[in-house]
């Protein structure tokens, strides 16, 4: 085949992608079909995978298919197992996909679908997938070590400690935000609360069965668990309507907060097999199933996008979150475009399972493209809802009031025409008392998914309510799993940290040490959760940007590590592939951090907000969010805590930048590679290499 003929199909695909992208970008006034977005995204992903990812693999980092991987070198059948690349892809994708790519794009839709779509597509190709791939490469070449260890080894001890400390803070913010999404979705919703509560006995039953009756067989019991979940959703509808049971499951945000904090504490000290593991199985399978179903649903339904390409809120006056397009759009959509958390997975279990370096491109780069596609689907789901309904669901009560009537009036005044009846009907369709001010992404996404799924299955309004609660359950389930697992992980981190001062606290088998560390960890995220729940602007408004900033900063740290490694490998002439996304992330996160601290608009800047309240306090005047002078003081205190946290994140990332530049300069002074890779060892011949796992498919 001539070289041109080899590329002709890809050129055609690129043209298709460009045409679809142009159609989406240039559509003005007329509505367009969601499939244009899907086609544009998929075509660009494929072309990027074929060319850019291949360039990264062959030229930038130089993967070596003959080099032994940690899985082969240390094969123990447990942690280190050479694994078929498709099987590993599933493992990696299930580990990186979470609530992030589903929520961010929904919130970003307030500026219209176009900015979010462009950032998701180009962000993943040039930043997110690059990070996941490169970290996988760096970790695989170093026996599958974790990000913290890698930073310590390649950059030094102090940067290692700073990075770990940053990771702990990020964990706390993530747990608080995730828990906040659940509270926002379940508050005043007896149906949702009942189904989510029902997952606890279902999971415990599964756990006992897997532990004592049929250990190691998870297939059948997961199917039974799934059927019970579906029954719980159906039963939830009856419970919500029952005059005795309904009120019992109708809880306020504050009540749910205390329940979640208590739950987080108890769940994370229970043995893992009882509750965490079985619910993890359920949530993982449900997550993958729902994502596949959503993809099929969008293609079959081919919905029209009702959200405009750009709304008037690109100027930064939007009600869902405050701040202008740059930098806040790039903060709001973190996962799906680039997510620092993936660097923990790419340097976690995945490099220990990789059978050959040549599969890094498929797992690392390809896995992230898949996650990005999930984000595109979430954006589509949010954009097929009537914009008026979208804004009524996502704007804080402080702006649109708490009734359908006030919300309809306020949102219509912004130019998104919606009637009181429409809002009441939408709530009725999905089996809820109200849908007003349910920021947090989950309920909006659930309405969108309910539209798509009920178009697929038919069944009218009854099915609509079922699918809405299915979507809520699916999100709540894996968020609760993350809260549980995250609290455990945070507890270990904290015990490690505290252990440097009081060695007794490090013993993870000591009951008092465990309880203390767990309580501190739960208390930390519980504090932010409570603060978010009572916030009249809805909490998400404040915390989602903080979460985005921290997640993107972790990505910047990971990419700086990759840059340093490229310099140490004497491949600095290709290091732009890592420097380019790093520079962009630094620009976004540092600008956003600076604005969160000092912006003159009190909706954006924490310190300005605190100052305006302080001034009112001086006059003895109670201003809107607060209802008393004590509350005012509380809000001012919270502002300072949030500002301090933002400043800490900025400190972490700036100090990492300085350490990285220093390490790069040192590497340049050497005339030979100084990267600390595991020594080269040739891959053994196929006759002795792998067991059955390496084959198949």
């Amino acid at each position, binding site marked *: 085949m001539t070289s041109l003929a080899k590329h002709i199909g890809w050129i055609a695909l690129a043209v298709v992608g460009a045409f679809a992208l142009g159609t989406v970008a240039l559509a003005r006034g007329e509505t367009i079909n969601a499939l244009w977005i899907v086609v544009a995204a998929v075509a660009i992903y494929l072309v990027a995978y074929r060319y850019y990812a291949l360039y990264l693999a062959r030229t930038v980092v130089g993967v070596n298919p003959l080099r032994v991987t940690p899985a082969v070198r240390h094969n123990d059948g*447990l*942690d280190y197992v050479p694994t078929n690349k498709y099987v590993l892809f599933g493992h990696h994708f299930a580990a990186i996909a979470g609530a992030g790519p589903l929520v961010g794009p929904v919130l970003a839709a307030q500026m219209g679908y176009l900015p979010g779509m462009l950032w998701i597509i180009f962000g993943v190709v040039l930043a997110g997938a690059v990070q996941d791939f490169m970290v996988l490469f760096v970790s695989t070449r170093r026996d599958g070590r*974790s990000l913290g260890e890698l930073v310590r080894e390649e950059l030094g001890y102090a940067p290692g400690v700073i990075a770990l400390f940053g990771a702990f803070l990020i964990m706390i913010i993530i747990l608080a935000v995730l828990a906040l999404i659940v509270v926002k979705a379940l508050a005043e919703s007896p149906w949702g609360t009942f189904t989510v509560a029902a997952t606890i006995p279902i999971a415990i039953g599964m756990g006992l069965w897997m532990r004592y009756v049929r250990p*190691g067989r*998870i297939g059948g019991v997961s199917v039974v668990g799934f059927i019970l979940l579906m029954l719980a959703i159906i039963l939830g509808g009856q419970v919500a309507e029952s005059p005795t049971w309904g009120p019992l499951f109708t809880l306020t945000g504050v009540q749910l907060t205390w329940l979640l904090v208590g739950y987080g504490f108890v769940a994370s000290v229970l043995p893992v097999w009882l509750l965490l593991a079985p619910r993890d199985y359920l949530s993982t399978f449900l997550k993958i199933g729902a994502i596949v179903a959503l993809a099929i649903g969008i293609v079959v339904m081919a919905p029209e996008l009702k959200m405009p390409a750009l709304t008037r809120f690109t100027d930064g006056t939007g009600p869902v979150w405050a701040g202008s397009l740059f930098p806040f759009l790039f903060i709001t959509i973190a996962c799906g475009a680039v997510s620092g958390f993936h660097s923990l997975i790419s340097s976690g279990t995945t490099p220990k399972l990789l059978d050959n370096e040549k599969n890094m491109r498929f797992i690392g780069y390809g896995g992230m493209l898949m996650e990005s596609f999930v984000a595109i689907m979430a954006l589509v789901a949010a954009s097929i809802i009537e914009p008026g309904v979208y804004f009524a669901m996502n704007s804080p009560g402080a702006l649109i009031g708490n009734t359908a009537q006030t919300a309809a009036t306020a949102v219509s005044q912004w130019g998104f025409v919606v009637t009181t009846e429409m809002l009441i009907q939408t709530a009725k369709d999905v089996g809820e008392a109200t849908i007003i001010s349910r920021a947090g992404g989950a309920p909006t996404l659930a309405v969108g998914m309910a539209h798509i799924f009920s178009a697929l299955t038919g069944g009218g309004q009854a099915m609509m309510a079922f699918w809405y609660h299915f979507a809520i359950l699916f999100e709540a389930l894996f968020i609760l799993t993350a809260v549980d697992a995250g609290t455990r992980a945070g*507890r270990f981190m904290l015990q490690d940290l505290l252990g440097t001062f009081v060695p007794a606290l490090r013993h993870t088998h000591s009951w008092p040490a465990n309880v203390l560390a767990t309580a501190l960890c739960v208390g930390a995220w519980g504090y932010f959760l409570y603060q978010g729940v009572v916030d009249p602007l809805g909490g998400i408004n404040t915390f989602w940007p903080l979460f985005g900033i921290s*997640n993107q900063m972790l990505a910047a740290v990971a990419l700086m590590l990759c840059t340093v490694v490229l310099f140490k490998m004497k491949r600095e002439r290709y290091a732009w592939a890592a420097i380019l996304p790093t520079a962009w992330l630094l620009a976004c996160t540092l600008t956003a951090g600076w604005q969160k601290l000092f912006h003159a608009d009190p909706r954006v800047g924490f310190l300005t907000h605190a100052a305006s309240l302080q001034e009112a306090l001086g006059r003895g005047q109670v201003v809107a969010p607060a209802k008393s002078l004590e509350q005012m003081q509380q809000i001012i205190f919270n502002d300072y805590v949030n500002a301090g946290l933002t400043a800490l994140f900025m400190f972490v990332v700036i100090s990492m930048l300085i350490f990285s530049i220093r390490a790069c300069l040192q590497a340049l002074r050497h005339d030979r590679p100084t990267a600390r890779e595991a020594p080269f060892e040739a891959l053994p011949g196929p006759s002795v290499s792998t067991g*059955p796992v390496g084959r198949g498919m």
Partner: protein
Amino acid sequence: MRKELKTLAHGLRQMAYLMVGLPDYEAYADHMRRAHPERPPMSRGEFFRERQAARYRGGSGRCC
């Protein structure tokens, strides 16, 4: 054709198990037989419990 379908089903099953952190037991047993014939491998139940505990032993946690 049937053989391909069987391999596919086997692969999908492995994928589902590994998604929740459980590697293939047969591969483990096979590895132990070849590499460490002197040591008795864990039973399926022991293997399951060991892997389950290892998955949540701390460290990175899951994504956002």
